[in-house]
């Protein structure tokens, strides 16, 4: 039997998901034996051109990381969709937009102005921006168009499965690859991660009081957070109640609160509003204090609540025309 063909590629991504695949360590060698890799730019010398020559649907699985930020990302995503039976959106960026999705609060023009005109180190006497097409000594050079918006993968193409995380942990990556290799797959559209909330698996959960109130909001640098007590009970913003479990609680283990890279709990599309409603029920100012002050102590709601998910949120959701 021929080995199933697998493509791995990155769109608007940082390469961290690729590193996470390399973190399969010696298991990577067994994966490499079980499948035929037809694309993996970070590690293998196979070019896009060779994909064009494959039949539609000839690739068993395409693992796609990163958000869709420019015309080239879109083109590659569409090409892989056409050639693949299964598309797996891997990592927070592909699933929800990721931290680059915070750029949807700023816009392309603002970014270009800073990067190419206003930054203290920039030198740009003509004031021009990079161009999708330009002439240099009579030769034409082209660049992909930079979109005005950051999109999730499923806003660009049809996605079969989701594997969240920044990056996804090795155990879930191995499970996902195994599921595809053995054909033991859940219904289309599933997220290949536990269905619980992070709070449900958090070791600090046992220290979370039955009922508690947040009377002051603290920032992580200001305090010596107790390593065993629920962050919210300490007044520190932690997205555990609204975030899906499965990350391995790595941040919590280093005494650092959750920022939501696993996306919302099942059944919820907007992680931020879900967290906000959980938080609102806990916030109680000290007697006689102005509730506005307590709310103002949450200094960056957008950055806390939508750290990884702006493009998938009600605020940021759009589809590519």
């Amino acid at each position: 039997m021929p080995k199933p063909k697998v493509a791995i590629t990155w769109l608007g991504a940082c390469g961290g998901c690729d590193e996470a695949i390399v973190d399969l360590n010696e298991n990577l060698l067994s994966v490499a034996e079980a499948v035929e890799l037809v694309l993996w730019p970070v590690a293998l010398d196979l070019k896009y051109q060779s994909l064009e020559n494959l039949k539609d649907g000839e690739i068993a699985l395409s693992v796609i990381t990163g958000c869709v930020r420019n015309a080239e990302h879109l083109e590659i995503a569409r090409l892989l969709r056409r050639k693949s039976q299964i598309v797996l959106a891997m990592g927070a960026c592909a699933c929800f937009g990721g931290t680059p999705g915070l750029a949807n609060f700023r816009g392309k023009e603002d970014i270009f102005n800073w990067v190419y005109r206003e930054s203290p180190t920039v030198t740009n006497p003509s004031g021009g921006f990079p161009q999708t097409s330009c002439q240099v000594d009579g030769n034409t050079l082209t660049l992909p168009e930079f979109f005005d918006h950051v999109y999730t993968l499923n806003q660009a193409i049809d996605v079969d499965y989701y594997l969240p995380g920044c990056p996804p942990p090795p155990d879930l990556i191995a499970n996902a690859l195994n599921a595809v290799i053995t054909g033991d797959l859940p219904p289309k559209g599933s997220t290949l991660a536990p269905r619980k909330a992070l709070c449900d698996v958090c070791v600090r959960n046992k220290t979370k009081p039955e009922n508690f109130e947040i009377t002051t909001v603290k920032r992580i640098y200001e305090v010596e957070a107790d390593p065993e007590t629920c962050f919210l009970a300490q007044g520190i913003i932690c997205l555990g109640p609204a975030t899906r479990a499965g990350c391995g609680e790595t941040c919590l283990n280093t005494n650092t609160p959750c920022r939501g890279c696993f996306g919302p709990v099942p059944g919820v599309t907007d992680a931020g509003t879900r967290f906000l409603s959980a938080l609102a029920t806990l916030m109680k100012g000290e007697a006689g204090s102005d509730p506005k002050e307590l709310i103002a102590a949450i200094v960056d709601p957008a950055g806390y609540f939508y750290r990884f998910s702006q493009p998938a949120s009600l605020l940021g959701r759009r589809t590519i025309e």
Partner: protein
Amino acid sequence: MSRKITINPITRLEGHGKIEIFLDDKGDVADAFLQVVELRGFERFCLGRPAEEMTRIVANICGVCPSAHHMASTKALDELFGVEPTPTAKLIRQLEYNASFVEDHYLHFFFLGAPDFLLGEADPAERNILGLVAKVGKEIGLKVIEVRKRNRDIIRHIFGKAPHPEGGLPGGVPRRITEEDRVWIKDTAEMTLEFAKFAIQLFKDAVLADKKNLDLILNDAYCLETYYMALVGKDKRANFYEGRVRIVDPQGKEFALFEPRDYVEHIGEWVEPWTYVRLSYLKKIGWNGLKEGKGTSLYRVAPLARLNASEGMLTPLADNEYRVMFETLGGKPAHHTLAMHWARLICAMQAAEHNWQIANDPLLTSRDIRNMNFKPGHRGVGCVEAPRGTLFHDYEMDKKGLLTKINLIVATQNNAAPICLSIKKAAQAFIKGGEVKEELLNRVEMAFRAYDPCLGCATHALPGQTPLTINIRQPNGAVLRIISRPEH
């Protein structure tokens, strides 16, 4: 009629890029460009965020060297909040940082760089880590995997995740090291140091001993005369974590030595319409375009630059190898781009040796891991040697501790213009009379791969990574050939 060659994506590097090669009427190379095709905008979308959250967001600039961004950011917070980390916190940070150098440099050498030297003539489908394991033996392959895994365990232990460490705090670290931890950390440090010696020996025996490889390294096609920049510590020795920034000229003479916070006086970033990355140059000389040698305003960073711009290595074994390298290459500075692979192994050795020292330092396990005696200021600059070169994070904040200005100068960005030149030079040497063979194109790719470029980093302002495409174009601009690897 001129022709154009396109290589897309460029492979075995981090990020999105393509190479365009223009041929003249004779089929020789008229011009060549490395284009970075992405941008993300971290400098803008982090505005208004709480300063302390930056260590958690900027790690996402690059999944390959997140520890570098995390550390530069943490150091910028030290300065912003006017606080020195405790001696133990500093040791723990350096332990993590050296571990990241080790795993990063070996990943590059064995997964990305070495296949070119050891499998240069192999089928492109075999010219990779899997082919390398097949050639040098599974045992060595497993050793590489183990050293990477165990050093990433150190990163995970201290900052939670690899990739994307979390939890750098102004004045400290989020978690201490116990005596129990020290046992396995010491064991890892010892094993890593042994591996570092092995890797250098392997480079000498398997790469340098083959005259073809040494000739390739010394080949003029892979030489580029530029300035060099790196962070240096005491006695101007290479330092990855702290110190002053030193620039030497193409003859090796000191051109500048400055505190990282003064980088704006020294570094300029030129904008070209054909790439999303800004091209760094020396402001005091002024932009002189893409040229090397006399009159150049270009400088290079990364492993070879670290050796060229310093007066030695921090640790004894690495320092000895430093001297061996310059003797073999015929003196200092060495302009041989492919020697970056060698320099990378020497830097990894420094990281391994330094971690062995740290693992044995009695202070490592103290409970004093945070200095919270904050004196918040307005501006903080954090600078480290990232694996791919000098990295600057420059933040300003308001009285509430929210960011009002962010400027980043990222390792590969410093090298963006020199990479273009290196590619052009290699293309001119290897592509003649319109003959375009795959192995010759890989020699062109070798010119950029030596830099271990991380286009994800370079385009922090933009999104991304660096797969490369090479377009070969005719004089009329028509694509003669887009480089794709043979089917397999």
